[in-house]
């Protein structure tokens, strides 16, 4: 990790530690923690990390932005930070300046399509859009016969049917019914909706990996405190082996997600190699969320199943994040098809190229 990456990530960590402590948030039923947290993040320029300075952002590198998302995952941050970062990145692809405030992106599923109408308005439905209810603006990928465009739309111009993801954060259906964007520009040559899905998928992978790091930490700590059968449960071999497996899942998620982030940060295009990295991260991190999260709960026993305990903040969000920007099943099919088309003898060269 480069020095500057450390500084950006450390800034984020410090804000989260001060204003997004899981215990404090978990006790705060009114959501009073949200506004100060968002304000601090905005003042540090973190939501617009990936927006160049001439588009109103802070012009951090992709790598720096990814390190912020790892930190956000470790704190299971429940404000639209990743979403605003992705929206800013998307808008910047078409040199559209980012407005202030919370944003999200649409579509958030590889199967949804938004249409750019002849009159410049947008039509279509995007499902599972994270934090749409909390967003002031939505960055949209829309297509017409000429190709893809990127548009900035006021959230108020769309119909938003509220939904909740597993972690209790908004995951909404956004309907564009002849919605007029503030700005629309053609997407750059070679841009595909898949690129947004891969960026979103890697963001979610980093968040899941971060959440697993925290689940490992609090599970280890709990096992060293909790006494049963007259000894700490960390002294039982069965518990030790479960925690070793959780460490393995956490490690796999961390390796897959940081490798994919590194691949995108250093790539000039979304080629097969970057595709392999990005979708492998989403697939493997999603699998780790299930296996690792399950162990974290098993170690905690009943207390971890209560709303008062902080474990669910990590475990349920990690599970919920699996669904955003294409599930692991969806990407596994796509990756399997790619491998099949390239042929058996090209599989190892693809894997070894990374």
């Amino acid at each position, binding site marked *: *990790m480069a020095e500057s990456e450390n500084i950006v990530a450390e800034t984020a960590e410090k804000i989260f530690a001060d204003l997004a402590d899981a215990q404090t948030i978990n006790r705060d039923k009114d959501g009073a923690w949200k506004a100060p947290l968002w304000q601090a993040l905005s003042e540090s320029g973190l939501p617009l990390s990936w927006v160049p300075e001439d588009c109103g952002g802070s012009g951090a590198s992709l790598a720096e932005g990814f390190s912020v998302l790892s930190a956000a995952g470790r704190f299971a941050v429940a404000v639209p930070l990743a979403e605003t970062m992705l929206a800013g990145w998307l808008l910047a692809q078409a040199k559209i300046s980012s407005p202030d405030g919370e944003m999200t992106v649409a579509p958030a599923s590889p199967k949804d399509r938004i249409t750019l109408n002849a009159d410049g308005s947008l039509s279509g439905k995007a499902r599972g859009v994270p934090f749409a209810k909390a967003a002031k603006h939505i960055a949209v990928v829309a297509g017409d016969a000429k190709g893809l465009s990127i548009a900035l739309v006021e959230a108020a111009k769309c119909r938003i049917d509220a939904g909740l993801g597993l972690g209790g954060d908004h995951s909404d259906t956004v309907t564009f019914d002849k919605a007029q964007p503030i700005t629309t520009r053609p997407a750059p040559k070679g841009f595909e909706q898949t690129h947004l899905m891969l960026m979103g998928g890697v963001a979610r992978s980093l968040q899941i990996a971060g959440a697993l*790091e925290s689940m*490992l*930490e609090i599970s*280890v*700590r709990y*096992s*060293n405190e909790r006494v049963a059968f007259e000894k700490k449960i*960390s*002294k039982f*071999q069965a*518990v*030790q*082996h479960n*925690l*070793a*497996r959780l*460490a*393995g899942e*956490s*490690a*796999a998620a*961390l*390796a*897959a997600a*940081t*490798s994919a*982030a*590194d*691949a995108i940060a250093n790539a000039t295009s979304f080629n097969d190699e970057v595709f*392999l*990295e990005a*979708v*492998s*991260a989403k*697939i*493997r991190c999603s*699998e780790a969320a299930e296996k690792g999260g399950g162990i974290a709960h098993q170690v905690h026993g009943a207390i971890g199943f209560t709303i008062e305990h902080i474990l669910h903040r990590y475990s349920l969000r990690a599970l919920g994040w699996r669904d955003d920007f294409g599930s*692991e*099943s969806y*990407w*596994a*099919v*796509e*990756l*399997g*098809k790619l*491998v*099949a*088309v390239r*042929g*058996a*003898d090209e*599989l*190892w060269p693809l*894997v*070894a190229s*990374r």
Partner: protein
Amino acid sequence: MTAALRFDPIRLPPECEQLRKEVRAFLAEEIAAGTFDPHQPNREDTDAPEFSRRVGAKGWLGMTWPKKYGGHERSFLERYVVTEEMRVANAPTRRFFVADRQSGPVLLKYAPENIKMDILPRICRGEVCFAIGMSEPNSGSDLFAAKTRATKTDGGYLINGTKIWTSSAHIADYMIAIFRTSPPTKENRRHGLTQFLVKMKQPGIEVNPIQQITGQYEFNEVVFTDFFVPEDHVLGEVDGAWKQATSELAYERSGPERFLETYYVLTELVRAVGKNPDTRSAEGIGRLVAQLHTMRRMSVSVAGMLQAGKEPVVEASIVKDIGTVWEQALPHRVRDLAAFVEETATNRETLENQLSFAIKTAPKLTIQGGTTEVLRGIIARGLGLR
């Protein structure tokens, strides 16, 4: 953070890609010449001495060792590339692999100069085969229960006892073994074992082959009867072998051989399903490839840390735990996915033969070189649970 696991996204440097091309070209030539069949992992390949010498002549043995001992002073990452290409091609590496990975580095660290000058260049030339004498009939994972005695005598030691499950002992020129030189102490049950270099194929050593469930004979029982080992064959501290084991384990545990042993069935499945797989096959293959890619990235990351002089003992144990569990399950997952492969697939028979062998191989993968249970104990210790 109580558990600061590190898996930085290390990339192989550019010189590795040139090397990779050379290794692939070499292997293609060997395959064309009929040295081995990459589709047949189940051959008796323990003895491929000429191939071993040709690999040595290429400069791919002792790659990281000092030139003075015949080595090539290249990086661990370059060695990594050679290892993974050989493994994926199912090349017959058994004759040199143990010496190159494990025994050579032990000699480099602990052997006297005359022995290093004698043996290491021969390993680099692919001329000698090593075995590892650890397990005994009543001492497997519990290494420190070893009972085979080394009794002090004039100018050396007399060895009496039995090693077992010793791979390649029937063809090995040398063995690096641990023998008991003193009883364990009350304070330290690991005390009293010493590492020795043993020259094989001599009177006083009896090697009895043991057949495995795959049908192969890799294992052996090795019986020592008043076998003499000279003084200068002691490797490291007398009674202190337990101090010497840990640092090498990271190398042994995290390499590509820890997840690629059954890889061939995945390639063959991709061939069998063809260009237009159904959704079930595509998803199954996609997940396996994602898991494989992730493990390789973890393994390369550990190799990079080793190259940087770190000792990622916990990370290496995690790679072996996850990697061996994966390669063990792989043939069964491939079998699931192959259930609906067209009867007409041209490689159906190859795939079935490979699956049969891989499924029989699978049980050993989580046992050899440190069982899953031992690894998880090491990880748990690293997490601060012990």
